[in-house]
C-alpha cells in the first residue's frame, strides 16, 4: 500500500455572497495515495474546482470559509500558516487551473512565469531554469519552445496556454498534482502526449494526482479511482473498472449514458439527464439528486442519504442503489473502435 498523500475529511467550503452564505463544497471526503491518480468527475458547477482550490487554500480569503480537514501527509493544511502554505504550494502540491487564459499573468512572458516557479523551489541559476523551462515546454509539445518562452500569454493559442500551465505545474516535480481539466483545450494527440508525461512523472516520482475532468475517456485511461460529485457532495466513489462496469448512483449512470459516441448512428439524439441543477441557494433538503432522479421516492425527497461503502472501495450516496443495480445492464459504455 502506498502512503496516504492527501486525505480530505468532510471538507466544506462556504462562500459569502450578496445573497448570503452558500456552501459550494459540502462535506467532501476522499483520499489520494502517492502514485495514484484519482479522477473527479461531476456535473458542471458541482464544486470540483472549488474543492481543488480549497486544498491549496487559494480561494479569496475575505469571502471564503473552510471547514473540515485537509490532511497532507497527515498534517492539516487548514492549520498551516501562510508562509508554511507557501512552502507546500508549487513544491509539494502544484495545481493546473481550469482556466488557462486568465490564469497566466499577462504582463510576463510565459518563460518568466515558469522560471519563477522553478527558481522558487529549486536551487539553480537563472540560465539553468530557463533551459529547464524550455525543456518543459518541449515536453508538453509546444513547437519551437526556445522562441515561445519569450512570448506573452496573449500571443499563444488556448491550448498552448494550457500547456504552459501544465509545464509550470510539473516543473518542480510535485508530490501531488491537482489537475483541473488540464487537457480541455488540447487536441487528442497532444492530450495523449500530456497524459503520458503525467504518467511518467507518476511512475518516476511516485506522484499522486487528482485529475478533474469531464472527459470520461481520459478518466478511463489514466485514473485508478474515481470520485463522482454532485452539487457539492461526493455521491459515488469507486475504482475505475468498477465504476464503468457497475455504476451505482443514478447520476453516474446518467452521465455514462450521455457520452457521445465515435461510432454508430450519429444523428440519434444524445441522452440527457432531465431537469435542472438547483442553485446553491436552494439545495433540496433530502437527496440532492432527488428532483432529477427517476427512482426518487418520498424518502429521497425528505432524507439525505449518507455515503456508504457498498463493497470494498465502492462508496455510494443513494437510498435505492441496490434496486438500481438490478435494473442496470452492465457496461454503460460501448467499446468503440
Amino acid at each position: 500500500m502506498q502512503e496516504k498523500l492527501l486525505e480530505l475529511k468532510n471538507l466544506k467550503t462556504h462562500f459569502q455572497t450578496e445573497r448570503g452564505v452558500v456552501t459550494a463544497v459540502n462535506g467532501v471526503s476522499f483520499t489520494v495515495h502517492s502514485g495514484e491518480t484519482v479522477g473527479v468527475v461531476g456535473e458542471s458547477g458541482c464544486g470540483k474546482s472549488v474543492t481543488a482550490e480549497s486544498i491549496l487554500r487559494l480561494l479569496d480569503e475575505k469571502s471564503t470559509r473552510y471547514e473540515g480537514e485537509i490532511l497532507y501527509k497527515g498534517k492539516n493544511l487548514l492549520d498551516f500558516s501562510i508562509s508554511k502554505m507557501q512552502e507546500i504550494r508549487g513544491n509539494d502540491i502544484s495545481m493546473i487551473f481550469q482556466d488557462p487564459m486568465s490564469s497566466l499573468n499577462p504582463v510576463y512572458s510565459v518563460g518568466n512565469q515558469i522560471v519563477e516557479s522553478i527558481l522558487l523551489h529549486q536551487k539553480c541559476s537563472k540560465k539553468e531554469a530557463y533551459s529547464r523551462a524550455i525543456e518543459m515546454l518541449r515536453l508538453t509539445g509546444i513547437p519551437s519552445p526556445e522562441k515561445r518562452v519569450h512570448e506573452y500569454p496573449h500571443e499563444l493559442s488556448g491550448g498552448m496556454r494550457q500547456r504552459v500551465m501544465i509545464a509550470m505545474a510539473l516543473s518542480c516535480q510535485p508530490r501531488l498534482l491537482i489537475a483541473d481539466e488540464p487537457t480541455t483545450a488540447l487536441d487528442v494527440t497532444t492530450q495523449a502526449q500530456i497524459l503520458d508525461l503525467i504518467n511518467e512523472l507518476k511512475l518516476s516520482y511516485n506522484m499522486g494526482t487528482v485529475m478533474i475532468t469531464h472527459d470520461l475517456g481520459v478518466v478511463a485511461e489514466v485514473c485508478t479511482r474515481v470520485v463522482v460529485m454532485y452539487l457539492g457532495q461526493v455521491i459515488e466513489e469507486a475504482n475505475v473498472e468498477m465504476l464503468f462496469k457497475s455504476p451505482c448512483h443514478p447520476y453516474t449512470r446518467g452521465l455514462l449514458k450521455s457520452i457521445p459516441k465515435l461510432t454508430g448512428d450519429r444523428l440519434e439524439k444524445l441522452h440527457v439527464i432531465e431537469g435542472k441543477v438547483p442553485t446553491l441557494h436552494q439545495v433540496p433538503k433530502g437527496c440532492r439528486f432527488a428532483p432529477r432522479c427517476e427512482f426518487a421516492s418520498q424518502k429521497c425527497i425528505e432524507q439525505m442519504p449518507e455515503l456508504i461503502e457498498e463493497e470494498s472501495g465502492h462508496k455510494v450516496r443513494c437510498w435505492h442503489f441496490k434496486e438500481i443495480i438490478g435494473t442496470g445492464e452492465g457496461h454503460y459504455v460501448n467499446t468503440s473502435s
Partner: protein
Amino acid sequence: MQPSPVNQELELLTVKHHIKKERRELLFRRFFSNKLALTGCIIISFILLFTLVGPLLTSHDPYELDAKKRLIAPGAEYLFGTDNYGRDLLSRVVHGAKVSIGVGFSVALITSIFGMMIGLYAAYFRSLDNILMRVCDGLMAFPAILLAIAIMAALGPRVENVIIALSIVFTPYVARTVRSAALVIKEQTYIEALRSQGASSLRIIWSNIAPNVISPLVVQATFIFADSIITEAALSFLGAGIPAPAPSWGNLLYDGKMVIFNAWWMTVFPGVAIMLTVLGLNLFGDGLRDLLDPHNNKAKK
C-alpha cells in the same frame, strides 16, 4: 418533468417579480453593507446641510469687521475665534463652504465628465488618440494662474469663471488617467466579444469600458476636488478667484497663513473643513468603487 405552458408562464412571472425585488434589495443591501459609501454619504450630507442651514444658525455676520476684536482665540463668544479683521471665523467658515464646495464639486464633476470622454475616446480610437492627447499636452503646459488671470480678465472675476479656468487646467489630468486605464481594458477579451456581437463603439466605450475606469477616475476626481479648493484660494489671492471679502475655505487658509504663528485657529478650522469634505468625498468614492466591484463580499458573521 416539463411544466405545462400555463404553469411555465406563471412561474416566469413569479420569478420575474422575485428577480426585480432581488435587484432592488441587492442594490440596497450592497449600499448599506458598504460602510464606506454610507459614512461618506453621511459626511457629505452633513457638510451640505452645514452649507445650507449653517448661515442661518451663526449669529455673527461673516462680513462684520471690528478691528478691536482681531484674532480672538476660540471661546464661548466666538466658537472658532475671530480673524485678522475681527470677523467671526465660524460664520466665515460656514459661508465659505458654499463657494469652496461649489467650486470643488463643479470642477471635479466637469473635469470628470470631459476627462472621461476624452480619455475613453482617445484610448479606443487610435486615430483620435494622437490629436486629443496632444491637445492635453498643450493644455497641461499652461499654468493655472495665467489661465485664470486671463479668463478673469476676459470674463470678469466670478465664481463660474474660476470653475472654467480650473476645469480647463485639470481636465487633461483626468483624461490621461482614464485613458491609461482604458488602454488596458480595451485589450480584454470581453471587449472583443462585444465587438463580435456588433456592439457600437459608443456602447463598448460607455457601458463596458467606462465602469472599469471608475476607480482611477474617482481617485483623480477627489484629488482634483481638494486641489481646486486650494487653487481657488491662490487665484483669489491674485484677484482671479472669487471676489474679495467673500469667504472661501481656501482664502481663509491663506489669511490664516499670514498669522500662522499667532492664530492657529485661522488655519486649523478651514483646514479641517476641507479635510472633512475631502474625506467624505473619498469615502463615497471608494464606496462607489466597491459598489461596482463584484468581489466585494466580506465574510460577515
